[in-house]
């Protein structure tokens, strides 16, 4: 019981911290008591249902400035299988063995990995800082881990456990999902093999040849193109000056002697000038003056054309040096192909390797690890493994908005939105908060978010329930279905790139993912140490991704819009500020 009481004290501490909001750095004696133990909690048999109660969302305004009346007609949180909240199914939020946790813990930055208090999760937050962590349940098996299961579901292409997607012959070590990701990996390895087979020399000599060829052949031709371009630009500028002079001379002639049949841009003959025989000297002078300007213009047209031809020739030479396989003699194929191939090989096999035969930490290796996870899940399902139940969450809203018809008559219209999430999981999610001085030395709250959200099925319907309630076909036709939606959102990377929340002086909220902050151990004036810092950031900082195995509107044969994936999102800097409209 003493342990429980300690727990209470901890809970109180937690509450008071969040109320103060400004987390202070702890002194040594306080830090020594932050040992990583925490308050675990779980909710058994949870049901939340607003049923007949009235909820409303206020404060949302239309473009005319009027409050939009939003009725929140339904909100439920239940266990999976609730049939859109109609059957009260108890849901489990965490469990004793896999609890949600609130804990206060020291950062592990600067500690030796062999140190007993070292924890890789907190390695980017200094050991002198205490952080407050809120974490959801976590699982060691690939089947229960929603990240691996979400990836498996994406490749399997259907919601496992639903009719038509529960055949044991579709899973196992060579199941549908495993084959799908193997096929992707095969395409990548084929590309890699093809690149390697193209060259008789190895990667390192090829790269040196590329560099050498660039300096000896490409650079002089690029310089020549630049020079020719300058000459051409000058010729064009001169042509424009002469064209203006010619136009001015013509305008003078034409306005004073409008009887002429001459055209600007052509020589003006005696006959066309129509100058009077007697007393026409000034007319003839004006005509002659125009003809002189025309002659100079005409001459410059020829000069410009010559410069143009020379520029095109120089460009062709440069292009030839890049694309002609006979000119880049160091290896098979052209210079530009070699550059592209080396770049692609680096993407596939990582930047460390120097030979085609070695494929290191690149896309192929990463996909391979994803494949291992997918295979684990597929095998577990084949061997009778079951996925634990998730949560069903849903909400419905009614909006009353002003609608203006074609005649300008304004009337009130009610719009509906009905959101149902079936089988929602958030395991592996965490929020970490700590206090650190900003650029001006003032303490501020920093945060790091790891959000893992997996939803087996997300349906968003916009149909009037009085129409669609009785007509499932009509409801389905106006429903957007997302299957196996998995969102892994990773914002913030320890002290290197914390996330911060603030508010502006004009009353708007601000969310910022700071610019990268090299720590005190990085010499910012040294190129190599900055390079190492950036390499470390790109290699280790987590990326965000989203995958959806099927996007469908309605249920017809061509209702599917296919699968979607957004991979490798990472923000170097992000700032979001709200605006009052």
């Amino acid at each position, binding site marked *: *019981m003493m*342990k*429980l*009481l300690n*727990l*209470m004290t*901890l*809970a*109180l501490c937690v*509450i008071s911290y969040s*109320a103060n*909001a*400004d987390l202070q750095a702890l002194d040594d004696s306080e830090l020594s008591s932050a040992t990583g*133990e925490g*308050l*675990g*909690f779980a*909710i*058994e*048999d*949870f*049901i*939340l249902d607003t*049923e*007949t*109660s*009235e*909820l*409303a*969302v*206020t*404060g949302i305004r239309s473009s005319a400035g009027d409050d939009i009346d939003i009725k*929140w007609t339904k909100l439920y949180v239940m266990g999976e299988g609730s049939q859109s909240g109609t059957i009260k199914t108890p849901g489990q939020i965490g*469990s*004793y*063995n896999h*609890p949600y*946790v609130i804990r206060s813990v020291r950062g592990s930055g600067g500690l030796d990995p062999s140190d007993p208090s070292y924890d890789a999760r907190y390695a980017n937050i200094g050991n002198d800082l205490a952080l407050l962590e809120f974490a959801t349940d976590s*699982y060691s*098996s690939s089947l*229960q881990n929603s990240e691996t299961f979400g990836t498996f579901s994406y490749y399997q292409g259907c919601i496992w456990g639903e009719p038509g997607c529960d055949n044991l012959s579709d899973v196992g070590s060579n199941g549908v999902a495993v084959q799908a990701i193997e096929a992707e990996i095969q395409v990548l390895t084929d590309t890699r093999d093809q690149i390697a087979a193209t060259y008789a020399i190895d990667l390192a000599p090829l790269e040196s040849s590329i560099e050498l060829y660039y300096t000896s052949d490409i650079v002089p031709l690029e310089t020549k193109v630049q020079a020719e371009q300058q000459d051409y630009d000058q010729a064009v500028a001169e042509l424009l000056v002469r064209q203006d002079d010619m136009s001015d001379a013509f305008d003078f002639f034409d306005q004073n002697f409008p009887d002429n049949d001459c055209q600007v841009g052509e020589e003006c003959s005696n006959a066309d000038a129509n100058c009077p025989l007697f007393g026409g000297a000034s007319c003839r002078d004006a005509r002659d003056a125009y003809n002189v300007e025309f002659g100079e213009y005409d001459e410059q047209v020829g000069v410009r054309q010559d410069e143009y031809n020379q520029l095109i020739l120089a460009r062709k030479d440069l292009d030839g040096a890049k694309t002609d396989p006979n000119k880049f003699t160091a290896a098979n194929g052209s210079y530009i192909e070699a550059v592209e191939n080396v770049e692609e090989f680096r993407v596939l096999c990582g930047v460390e390797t120097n030979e085609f035969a070695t494929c290191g930490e690149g896309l192929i290796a990463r996909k391979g690890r994803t494949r291992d996870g997918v295979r684990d899940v597929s095998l577990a399902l084949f*061997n*009778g*493994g*079951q996925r*634990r139940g998730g949560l069903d969450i849903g909400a419905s809203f009614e909006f009353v908005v002003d609608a203006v018809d074609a005649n300008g008559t304004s009337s009130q219209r009610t719009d509906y939105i009905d959101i149902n999430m079936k089988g929602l999981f958030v395991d592996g999610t965490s929020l970490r908060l700590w206090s650190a001085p900003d650029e*001006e030395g*003032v*303490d*501020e709250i920093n945060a790091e978010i790891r959000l893992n959200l997996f939803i087996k099925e997300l349906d968003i319907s916009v149909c009037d329930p009085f129409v669609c309630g009785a007509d499932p076909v009509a409801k389905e036709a106006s429903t957007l279905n997302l299957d196996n939606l998995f969102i892994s959102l990773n914002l913030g990377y320890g002290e290197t790139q914390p996330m911060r*929340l*603030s*508010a*502006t*002086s*004009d*009353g*708007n*909220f*601000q969310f910022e993912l700071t610019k990268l902050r090299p720590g005190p151990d990085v010499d910012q004036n040294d190129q190599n140490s900055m390079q190492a810092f950036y390499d470390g950031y790109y290699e280790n900082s987590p990326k965000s991704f989203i995958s959806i195995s099927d996007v469908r509107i309605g249920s017809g044969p061509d209702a599917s819009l296919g699968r979607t994936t957004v991979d490798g999102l990472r923000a170097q800097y992000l700032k979001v500020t709200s605006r009052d409209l």
Partner: protein
Amino acid sequence: MKTTRQLVYALPLLISPFASAEMRAIDDMGLSQVAGQGGVYLSGEFAINKSGGPLWENGERPYYSLVDHDNNSSTPAIPTIDGSRSPDQCENGICGLRFAIKLNENSEGWYILDDVSGGLAFEGLTLQTETLTSAINYDVWDSSGNFQQLEIDDEVLKIGLPGVIRFNNLKFKFAVANNGEFGVDPEDDNGNPLMQPVDPAAPGGAMEVVQYRQTDIFGVELDGNVTVQGNLLLFPVD
């Protein structure tokens, strides 16, 4: 039953920040009477500013300018009601509670939970300690897919959710403002009105007083019965 006694001491501490209105600390006598019971059964109702709070009992909230009463800029200016700005009219003449929080020391704005009013009532919130004898390990299962049941002997605090919570026009607004206090123009470090350039593009030009501004992000209103079932387990983790 020492266990329960300690538990009951701890309980009002936990709840007090939220619901001090209707709860009373139990004296020693009272405590001695709960000994021997397996847990605590709680019913409660609390209401916040249901008929308007003491600060704004006339149903409207005025705006204040900072006025330098003694012509001395080294002493703080005093907030004075600004008649030129028409007061904020609270809904149905009831101004709710306001809770403001500044996340960072140098942040210029505040996050606000504004206009909190209404009430909620529940019956049957239970609180007891329970010794768990088994727990499911979802990471291990047998060939028929049954999850492993671990045998344990650990004490947890179990809070039985009440089943139904009755909301009585409970409402709140979430907003962001440039001062924690409603309607008062923000002040600088010396307590004088905060100034800003009239034209932000020309920082050296004429200055004006920064007026109080609040942006309501959204509000929620709740009325009626909401089903909230389940057991919340609390326990220490390593």
